[in-house]
């Protein structure tokens, strides 16, 4: 992973020396006017902002050294469940940097951006086909932004029918944290339903909460346990009968490409995470892209603008009187969308299908290899991810899932998602993705199996991990009790 410890890297501010710069600016070539002639004194800043002063070489070394303290998909398996940390193709990075894409101002005339609009239009159509929906907006900037947009569309739909009492969003207890949070940002209340023994939505529990105040049910399918909800048809029927809508959280769509389309299963709104399913890099936490697709009935409410085509030219369609409006500026994360477009074009229909098949194969393979060593709460075929429980290790030797994860860092691999979903005790949520070879999966499994042995034989070794990372286990309690959220210059005179 990140190699032997290299010790902490100073902050860039600690490397600063007055008078240095890493920037090259032209000299002023217009007649200079006094600042006070142009701006009122009251508008002016008294002291320059305290930005660090470093030379270009020091700047580059600092950030390159920081990069070496970090783990990424290009260094090895990154099996974070529900995050789909697949490989990001290099050619797409290169193509996204063509000046014909990067050097476009969003307010350029439409006639000068026909290539960009065509790419967006085609991406809208491709996502319609993949999701089984009728229209797509590329505007949301991330998955959670897509969720919020989708819930707003549902709210607008109900309101347009005079059905204004529907303020409840039903959310399974296995859902992503963004689902309830998005519901609240959309001004709704959340109602949680429990999962049944097979890991699906408990139909009796669902029946109890369905009434005429239900706006929608949000569902991830396969869910965060990696399980496909076999009752999806029944669920759709029940929710629709109650007058609610069905929302598909596309975080786990990597399992279903060309295999099952949310729109066909009764979902009315679908969001995609282009940074998960469609291979665009996660960027250390973004930028992502979270397009939203809808069935016909919801199309009038999509955010403005949508990219349209009149048979001769592509255009930004603002003439949508029932639209919810905007959810951000401009047209979405175009630079991300174009990498996803390139990915879809290079994979084609058979490639995308193979992606899902291999992703599911990889998850099942890892699950069966690890089953003898960890508790497997749901013993059935998983889809693209699965959950293990470390409760056996915790009971036997006091080794917690967090310890196991930290110990994995010593083996040079990134741990799975910890303690999520919340319904599984000491949960490890593993999503290998289709990118990993059998050898990589075996090495990962071997590391976890070895750690399971260590948990028995040398529990303290696991509990005190990690041992070879640039820093040891960090004190989160201290970070919470005494928040230190920015650097401050040392007091003058002090040292």
């Amino acid at each position, binding site marked *: 992973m990140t190699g032997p410890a290299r010790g902490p890297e100073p902050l860039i501010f600690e490397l600063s020396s007055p008078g240095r710069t890493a920037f090259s600016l032209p000299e002023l070539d217009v007649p200079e006017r006094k600042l006070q002639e142009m*701006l009122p004194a009251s508008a002016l800043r008294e002291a320059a902002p305290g930005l660090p002063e470093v030379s270009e070489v020091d700047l580059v070394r600092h950030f390159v050294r920081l990069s070496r303290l970090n783990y990424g998909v290009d260094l090895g398996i990154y099996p974070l469940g529900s995050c789909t940390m697949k490989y990001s193709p290099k050619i797409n990075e290169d193509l996204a940097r063509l000046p014909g894409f990067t050097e476009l101002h969003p*307010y350029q005339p439409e006639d000068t951006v026909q290539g960009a609009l065509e790419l967006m239009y085609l991406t809208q159509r491709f996502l319609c086909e993949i999701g089984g929906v009728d229209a797509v907006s590329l505007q949301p900037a991330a998955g959670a932004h897509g969720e919020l947009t989708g819930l707003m569309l549902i709210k607008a739909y109900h309101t347009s029918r005079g059905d204004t009492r529907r303020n409840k969003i039903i959310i399974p207890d296995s859902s992503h944290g963004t689902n309830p949070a998005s519901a609240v940002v959309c001004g709704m209340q959340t109602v949680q339903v429990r999962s049944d023994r097979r890991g699906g939505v408990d139909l009796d529990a669902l029946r109890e909460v369905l009434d005429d105040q239900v706006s929608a049910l949000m569902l991830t399918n396969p869910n965060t346990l990696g399980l496909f909800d076999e009752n*999806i048809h029944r669920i759709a029927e029940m929710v629709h009968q109650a007058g609610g809508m069905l929302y598909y959280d596309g975080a786990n769509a990597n399992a279903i490409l060309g295999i099952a389309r949310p729109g066909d299963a009764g979902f009315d709104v679908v969001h995609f995470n282009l940074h998960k399913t469609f291979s665009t890099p996660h960027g250390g936490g973004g930028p992502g892209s979270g397009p939203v697709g809808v069935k016909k009935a919801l199309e009038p409410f999509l955010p403005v603008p949508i990219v349209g085509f009149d048979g001769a030219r592509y255009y930004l369609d603002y003439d949508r009187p029932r639209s919810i409006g905007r959810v951000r500026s401009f047209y979405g994360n*175009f630079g991300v969308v174009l990498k996803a477009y390139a990915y879809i074009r*290079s994979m084609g229909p058979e490639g995308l299908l193979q992606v899902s098949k291999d992703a599911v194969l990889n998850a099942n393979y890892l699950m069966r290899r690890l089953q003898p060593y960890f508790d497997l709460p749901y013993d059935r075929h998983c889809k693209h991810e699965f959950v293990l429980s470390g409760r056996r290790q915790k009971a036997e030797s006091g080794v917690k899932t967090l310890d196991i994860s930290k110990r994995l860092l010593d083996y040079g691999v990134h741990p799975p998602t910890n303690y999520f979903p919340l319904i599984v005790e000491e949960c490890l949520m593993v999503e290998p993705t289709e990118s990993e070879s059998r050898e990589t999966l075996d090495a990962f499994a071997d590391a976890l199996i070895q750690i399971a042995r260590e948990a028995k034989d040398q529990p303290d070794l696991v509990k005190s991990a990690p041992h070879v990372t640039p820093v040891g286990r960090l004190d989160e309690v201290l970070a919470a009790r005494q928040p230190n*959220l920015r650097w401050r210059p040392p007091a003058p005179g002090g040292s």
Partner: protein
Amino acid sequence: MMKYLPHTDRDREAMLKTIGVKSVDELFSDIPAQVRFNRALDLPRPLSDPELARHMGELASRNRSLDGLTCFLGGGVYDHFVPSVVEHIVSRSEFYTAYTPYQAEASQGVLQSIYEYQTLICELTGMDVSQASMYDGASAAAEAGLICAATLGRGRIVVPASLHPEYRQTIKTYAWAHDLEVAEVPFGPQGTADLSRLEAALGPEPACLIVQHPNFFGALEPVEEMGRLVHARGGLLVAACDPISLGVLKPPAAYGADIALGEGQPLGIRLSFGGPYLGFFATSEKLVRRMPGRIAGATLDHQGRRGFVLALQTREQHIRREKATSNICSNEALCALAATVYLCALGRRGIVKLAGLCLQKAHYARDQVARLERFKPAFDAPFFREFAVRSTLPWERVESGLLQQGQAVGPSLGRFYPELKDCFLLAFTEKRTREEIDYLVGRMEGLI
């Protein structure tokens, strides 16, 4: 395509054997027949890399990029030079192929860079605390409105009409979902908020006033007076700013802003037809626990070495679910890294000089435009790098006539303000030379 899929058929067979099934299809047997998709997706056939490169090159060539134009376009995002160091650092795949730093010990690079970013944003804005990034300026403004309303338990968000129209539209969308009211303050003849009508718009109990400074027309708002008026009614002041302007303009904290935010695109982010960019978002100490999204904090490891973690996570959706302060999860981390590198490259003197260049060139251009017959500056308020021009010619003719001469100007204000349909914006960065400005003004004069 298969180069992204490592398995050979032999691998697959061996793995199926370990699993104990005969075929991959068996693994999908739990998907009910009625929801199985029984045909191939109707998508174009796969392209090889050379074919893909050619195809994408063709699409790119159907755009007229700013490489072949002189860009005077404004409206919140600007054609600044992006230093090579920025692209090189964000191209380090240890950064760009990582995700949210949940495992701090393997993510010190991202976490420390976020901590540095937060410090830079605090230095620029004068605020106490910054978070790690929002999607863009508009959504940052909308979330700020919700936070103010929730903090004070009030339902009225006030915005000047001179706030970026796309910010206002985004604020209205978010506010609609919460049944919050958005009240607009018209602008006066100076192109700034009409103070005589601000008090009425604020009403007795405003949640906040979201003011853009410089505003959409490039003009400086009377922010100090506006801040006094909203604070006098117990409301909060939210300032949306152009980060480059903060090289010369008073930081928002100095005129009493409770939240400072803005579009981070000018900080080393390419224009890319509208995104990805980043929203910066900083608050005073008292609002820190209301802050949306990720925040990095410094702490110690067991040996007493400094390290960085995600801090105050009890505000966030993955911990607090429906009680979170926002639903934001993925943000714009890589763009925030670009902004960090950009600001560190500029340094304390660099940003002052850069802001000065934008300011001087814009003022030079305004003087030249003021001499034209058919074009006049639309407003007289002090401005930073951008100003509105009023024309006696129809916008379509101005836009296309100048484009034919390689000059990109706008946006047209008529697009957002029917009463300003004869106006458009001109914006300036360090990239524009006197020669280019003179050429533009000459072409404007020559339009028929």
